[in-house]
Every structure is written in structure tokens, then in C-alpha cells.
């Protein structure tokens, strides 16, 4: 099973949602909210860049039972 690394879409998207929630929540020092905003914009751009992926990757494994039970 793959674990979402920091560059996966899921990780970026979750972080973007967390940043949005934190900003919406308010009560942030202005400087922190500007830093979060900048991070959010970078995350959003990286998400959009990933979503622009057009090439689908396919891996084909060898058939298991080509000659009886051998690989």
C-alpha cells in the first residue's frame, strides 16, 4: 500500500484544505496569516500542475498461469 508522501496530490490537497481552514478560523497574527496565504497559493499551484498531468502510466505484470503455475 502506498503512503501519501509530501509531494503526492493527496498530501498537497490535504495541506491546502488545512491551510484554508486555519485561515478561515481567523485569530491569526497578520504575519502568520500572510505566510499561510503564501503557502496556500503555492500548494494550490502545485495541485493544479499535478491535475494538468495528461500522460497515464501503465505497468503490465507477467501473467501468472502461462504455463501451469509457473511465473
Amino acid at each position, binding site marked *: 500500500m502506498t503512503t*501519501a508522501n509530501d509531494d503526492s496530490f493527496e498530501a498537497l490537497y490535504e495541506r491546502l484544505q488545512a491551510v484554508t481552514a486555519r485561515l478561515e478560523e481567523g485569530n491569526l497574527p*497578520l504575519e502568520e496569516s500572510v505566510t499561510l*496565504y503564501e503557502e496556500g497559493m503555492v500548494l*494550490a499551484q502545485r495541485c*493544479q500542475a499535478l*491535475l494538468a498531468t495528461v500522460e*497515464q502510466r*501503465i505497468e503490465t505484470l507477467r*501473467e501468472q498461469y502461462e504455463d501451469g503455475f509457473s511465473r
Partner: protein
Amino acid sequence: MPPEVYPVSQVTRYLRELLENNRHLTEVWVAGEISNLTRASSGHIYFTLKDERGALRCAFFRNRNIGQRMPLAEGLSVVVYGSLSLYEQRGDLSFVVDFVQPEGTGSLAAEFERLRDRFEAEGLFALERKRALPAFPQRVGVVTSSTGAVWHDICDVLGRRWPLATLVLQPTPVQGEGASPSIAEAIRSVVQHNVDLVIVARGGGSAEDLWAFNEEPVIRAIFGCPVPVVSAVGHETDNTLADLVADVRAPTPSAAAELVAPDRAAVGRHVSVLQTQITVTTTRNMARASEGVEAQQRHLVRALPAVDALQQRVRERGLAMTRAVRAHRDHAVIGVASQQARVAALSPLATLERGYALVVREDGSVATSATALAGGERVSLRLRDGSRDARIEGLL
């Protein structure tokens, strides 16, 4: 050599082993009519299965009959599934029943029912063990035939909706002899390749074509799969046990591909919404902060009337001082003027104005006494409008 003599128990044991190892007498379907039905207090059910020419004693033990759906009754025509055995202590031949179906059910349907009941009793279909699919799969395992429309459809749909995911195809035959263990092995193989979920798929076909997806190897492999499994076998109207054991059942392979990943266009729109949201929020926060600064400023101004008063006082003082200074200066000027007038009045020049003259000696001093002047001394007479040289006469 005398003939060998066997103890009874050895013969009965041999007979039992013979029966239980005969594949024509084990795990078979037998059709007949129920008679001599008895229910023991232990929960075991005994009956005789018979037709016009034969009869077979049947034992339907409690641990097997507990999941029995169809009620048993005298004279009922049924098909039973089980294995022949021998009750050694009495030498009775006995058909040990696993499952009873009403007669008239097709053998495939009856087998389907039997397997379904058995797996269900084991908890393989329990809803509480169904797992949710990952929101954004990175690697999707696909177990299906590499030929045919199914694989093509899955690639097509996922390529359009979510090309971020890598597809890992484990090809396998999906029908015919050996299909079920092959599919099972394919499931176990594909999960070795870091997939987030597995789609087990097959296109439409007859009940016989889809049969591998009801068989134990596939059911066990799906049940034992460490990641969620989406089943997509045949069309929407086809039901297989693979559908029941899978975490998610998709009506068709294309639908499975739609189920496992979001549409990137929709996700992109949501990212844009979030982008707008944080921009609006941050702009608002900044506006609020600057309003705060302004309010503070106003507050400060309001909070400093004392300063104002001080300034006023300073200003007033200043004015007073200025006035005082000016008055003083004016006064001084007036004073100076009068002094000047007085000085002017005392000036010898003013006297000259009146027709007097000054006698200025050669050393520049003014002669104030006649005795100081000697005869023949040269002096200068200074009058109102100029000077004239002169010589002192007499006294020589």
C-alpha cells in the same frame, strides 16, 4: 497359508476411508425426497433421502444445519449437498449433509446458494469489514484479462478522469478451467506492487462464464486482500459472490474506474475555490488589521486631549511670551528712540545747528578752554555745514 482375519473395527475404518477418499462420493449433489425426518435434542437432523428405487440415510449435523434457510419437511423433494461416510460404531452408511436446496433449482443456482450461505455464515460478507476507497489513489491494481474491452475501458475512463494514477495490470484468464485459482493468484500478485486498491473485473457473459467469480479461491483472495477491492463482474444484473465479498461493488468495469478516482476537472475546480477562498479571507484579514490600526490611531488621538491642552497651553504661553517679548521690544525701541532723541539733543551737532562752532585742535581734540590755545596754533573750525582752517592770533 490360513486366510487373514480382520477385526470389525479395522474393516469399518477401511470402508469409511474408502468412502471418504472417493471423489464420486464426496462433495456431491444428490436429489431425492425427504422421509423419516427426525430432529434430535442435540440439534442434529436425520432423514432418509429416497426415490422410487433407492434410499440413503442422511445426517444433517447441527453445525451444518444452523444456517439452513429452507425449512425441511416430510415428503419434500430436495437436492442435498454432502459426502458419503460410514458410522463405524454401527456400520451404518450415512450421507453427511452440508446443504439442502429445494428441488427444481438449477445445479448452478443451488451451488451458488450453498456457497453464499457458507461464506455468509463465515462472515466473509460482513458489512462492517467493508473498507472505504482512498480519495486519490496513486496506484490502481487491475486484475482482468489483457485482451478484450474491459481493460481498454478501465484505461480509457481513468486516463480521462484521473491520469495521476498509475495502472498496474495483472493479466489473468477470467473464465474456464483453472480461472478461479488464477484470478486469486493475480490478486495476491498485484498487491505486491504497492497498489492502493484492486479492481477485479470481467465483461458480461453467461452464468457459467462468470462462475469463477463465485468460487472459493477468488472469494478467499478478495477477503484476504490487504487493500480495498472493487468488483466489476459482468453487467449490473449479474450477481456474483465476488460482488458480495468485495469492499465495493461496481455494476460494470467502466463504472468501477469511475468509482475509484475523482474527476480531475471537478477537483481542479475545488482547488480554484480554495484559492479564491484563501485570497478573500487574507484580504479581509488584512483589511481588518489595517482598520484596527486606524481605529487605534483614532483611539490614541481621543485618548490624548491632555496633549492637546498642553499644546494649547504651550501655544498660548508662546503667544503670551511673544506678546511680552514684542511688547518689551517695542518698549525698548521706544526707549531707545527717546534716548536717541535725548542723545541727539545733547549732540554738539545740534548746537552747531544753532550757529555755534567747535574748535578742533590738530590732534583732533575739541578745545574747551581759551587758555589751552597758544598764539599761532593752527586749528579747525567746525560749523553746521563744514570745517574751515584757522590760526589763533594774539597772546604772542
